[in-house]
């Protein structure tokens, strides 16, 4: 497929998605909002985890800061939603810059472990802040308009995806990929690794915070535990890795496919559902560790050998 056909297909898919609220039942629109926000979060993770190779567990903090920034601005200061969203993004970017510089010095597992603690620390901090409603949380003004939330979520996802498209063919993105592939070599070839990593972290922060802010206004209620929920970060990783980390559309497809599977299964029998879901993920990691995007690209050439080769080359 040429880039042009891909672009036309993506545009057509976007238009169909944009038209969905006009013909779909309300429950599907609600499912759509949740999925589009998850896809945006997956794209955020894709920048720092997929392109730069830093497996972040701190992205749920970005989401939480986006939620709280929006909620505090709207509830405590009576500011409009747009301003609240911008405030949430600002908090998230500040956090990325302040925390990114120390934690992004750590490599591999150490980075993952350091970021693992961040969301719990944030839960504890926010639970003690008067302005954030302490451990009770905040109730946002009600806005009835799922179609609006849906279109807004779609717009943010499109923005995130276009940004990643730019990254994938820019000097900046090449620098990020070089850092992922070999950070020492990247530095010795003239890449300002610290600056690039912090910028990638901040970019991830922007999109995650946007998703957080929209989500908060949509569900109209936030509390410290659910805003900084680590399992949301795990979802971002699973969706990105399933779809194809470091690809432009993989995480979006991963989020759509896995959300659809999980939604279908949970309406049937929920305990069997989560078991099956877990097995799908284990199988995906073993048989297609580079995600759907790589599978689609290479399957035509290699055929079923694709799976056996992956098992062989990635065994521990």
């Amino acid at each position: 497929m040429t880039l042009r056909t891909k672009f036309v297909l993506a545009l057509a898919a976007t238009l169909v998605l944009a038209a969905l609220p006009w013909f779909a039942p309300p429950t599907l629109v609600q499912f759509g909002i949740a999925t589009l926000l998850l896809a945006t979060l997956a794209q955020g993770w894709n920048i720092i985890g997929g392109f730069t190779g830093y497996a972040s567990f701190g992205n749920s903090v970005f989401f939480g800061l986006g939620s709280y920034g929006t909620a505090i601005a709207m509830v405590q200061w009576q500011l409009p939603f747009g301003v609240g969203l911008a405030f949430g993004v600002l908090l998230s970017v500040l956090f990325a810059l302040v925390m990114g510089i120390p934690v992004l010095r750590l490599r591999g597992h150490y980075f993952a472990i350091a970021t693992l603690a961040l969301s719990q620390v944030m839960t504890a901090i926010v639970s003690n802040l008067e302005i954030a409603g302490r451990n009770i949380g905040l109730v946002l003004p009600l806005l009835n308009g799922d179609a609006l939330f849906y279109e807004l979520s779609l717009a943010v996802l499109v923005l995130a995806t276009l940004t990643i498209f730019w990254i994938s063919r820019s000097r900046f993105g090449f620098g990020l990929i070089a850092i992922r592939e070999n950070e020492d070599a990247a530095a010795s070839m003239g890449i300002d690794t610290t600056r690039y990593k912090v910028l990638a972290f901040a970019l991830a922060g922007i999109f995650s915070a946007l998703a957080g802010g929209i989500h908060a206004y949509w569900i109209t209620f936030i509390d410290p535990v659910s805003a900084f929920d680590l399992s949301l970060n795990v979802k971002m990783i699973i969706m990105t890795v399933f779809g194809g980390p470091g690809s432009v559309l993989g995480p979006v497809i991963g989020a759509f496919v896995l959300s659809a599977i999980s939604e279908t299964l949970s309406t049937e029998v929920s305990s069997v559902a989560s078991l099956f879901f877990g097995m799908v993920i284990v199988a995906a990691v073993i048989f297609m560790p580079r995600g759907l995007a790589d599978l689609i690209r290479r399957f035509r050439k290699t055929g079923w050998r694709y799976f056996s080769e992956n098992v062989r080359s990635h065994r521990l």
Partner: protein
Amino acid sequence: MKTTPILEIRGLSKRFGGLVAVSDVNFSIAPGETLGLIGPNGAGKTTLVSLISGSITPTTGDILFEGASIRHLPAFQRARAGIGRTFQIMKPFPGLSVLDNIAVGALFGTSTTAKALQTAREEAREWLELMELQHHADQRADELGGPDRKRLELAKAMAMKPKLLLLDEVMAGLNHAEIDDVIEAIKKVRRTGISVLVIEHVIKVIQRLSDRLLVLHHGQQIIEGKPEEVLEDPRVIEAYLGRRRA
């Protein structure tokens, strides 16, 4: 008239715990000159290259590049200033294509203008051909065989267009014909006027390339001078050649 050396090393030492890997080393490299660095395994050659490229920081001493101290500069700024290196334990970007591995060098390195990816790939293609890797352009770097990996390592460093190239055993593991090819390639880039610090075990190779030789032994420089003089020095024969023969 005395020109400013491209590189000047002053009293440089590096200690790893109780081990002094590089001990009070002093030398300089003139613009356009090729200095050969030899010494037995564990002599501190790779450590010296890492000190110059900025991968590690010295315990004491100073490093001057074009007359200015670079001791406190991080590795990426030294690369931008014009120091390119290869790694003895090769560090390719495994998941990138061979072409894109080299393109990273053209895209960053000493290049100050933000050039398009397209331009960088075109530049990379020239180095690819010089290193006779053109048939592997679209292959992933981790699919390359040993000798081709060595060539890639060299092409990546050269694509940075450095003023000083640090080559850490790029020819180890190559056969005679391959070594001849790589020597020709190095001579070709040298004609552009760059300086080279070359580490190699094969004496014939080092003789063919070097204007001057420096011998390290247990981290200390034991002699420095014209290749033919150095290679006949009894201390060198004992420390280096003697051990290799044994």
